[in-house]
């Protein structure tokens, strides 16, 4: 332990030079997706409000979310939600010591990336 502490360490962490392993990548994307959804909370409630207020508003909101750019943004939100949820389930499993071995953890991290992207394409495609 003493030796480990005395090892020379990088004093300046150069962000572009840091190469994250896959689990680290999943972890930072979990954080980024969470922050994005935090900012979008009022927008999501606004969309919910429009969808349940009246038939006319329901229709006008459907027209609003039909704009390609709005749709693209919502599909971005869909990915954020799916990634955050998949990565979150993985973290819960890690919490109860399921799959904490290096190999398993790397495999599940890859699975999170692939599954959330696949689900985004499938659900986003179906809703487009």
């Amino acid at each position, binding site marked *: 332990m003493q030796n480990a502490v005395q090892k020379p360490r990088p004093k300046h962490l150069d962000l572009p030079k840091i190469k994250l392993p896959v689990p680290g990548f999943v972890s930072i994307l979990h*954080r980024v997706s*969470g*922050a994005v*959804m*935090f900012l979008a*909370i*009022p927008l999501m*409630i606004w969309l*919910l*409000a429009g*969808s*349940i*207020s009246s*038939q006319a508003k*329901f*229709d006008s909101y459907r027209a609003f979310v039909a704009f390609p750019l709005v749709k693209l943004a919502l599909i971005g939100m869909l990915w954020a939600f799916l990634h955050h*949820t998949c990565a*979150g*389930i993985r973290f*819960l499993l890690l*919490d109860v010591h399921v799959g904490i071995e290096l190999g398993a953890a790397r495999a599940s991290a890859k699975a999170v990336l692939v599954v959330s992207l696949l689900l985004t394409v499938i659900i986003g495609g179906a809703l487009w």
Partner: protein
Amino acid sequence: MVNRQVIGAHYGLRDWLLQRVTAVVMVVYTVGLVAALLLAHNAGYEGWKSLMGYTWMRVLSTVTILALLLHAWVGIRDIWMDYVQPVGIRLTLHVLTILWLIGSFVYGITVVWGV
């Protein structure tokens, strides 16, 4: 033997647990809602409005919104604690986060209960 001094405000475990419990609440609500939408995929506006109008559904939505905001609080606070070192700026960001979440909560409640 691990022999360490435990210091701090002792809210770590409570918040850690809160974040996980609220996460499970949101997943259960989402799975239930998606299942309902799949079962009634051609119900249109009337079906959607009546589903969201049941009192039990409004209660579940309220609980889930509360879970979301508590969950977001722990997560966003962790982000500020990790990246923002100057105490004054961090405190300001904490306060803005709380205001953002309380505002979202009030807005969400008015929408869910149709005020």
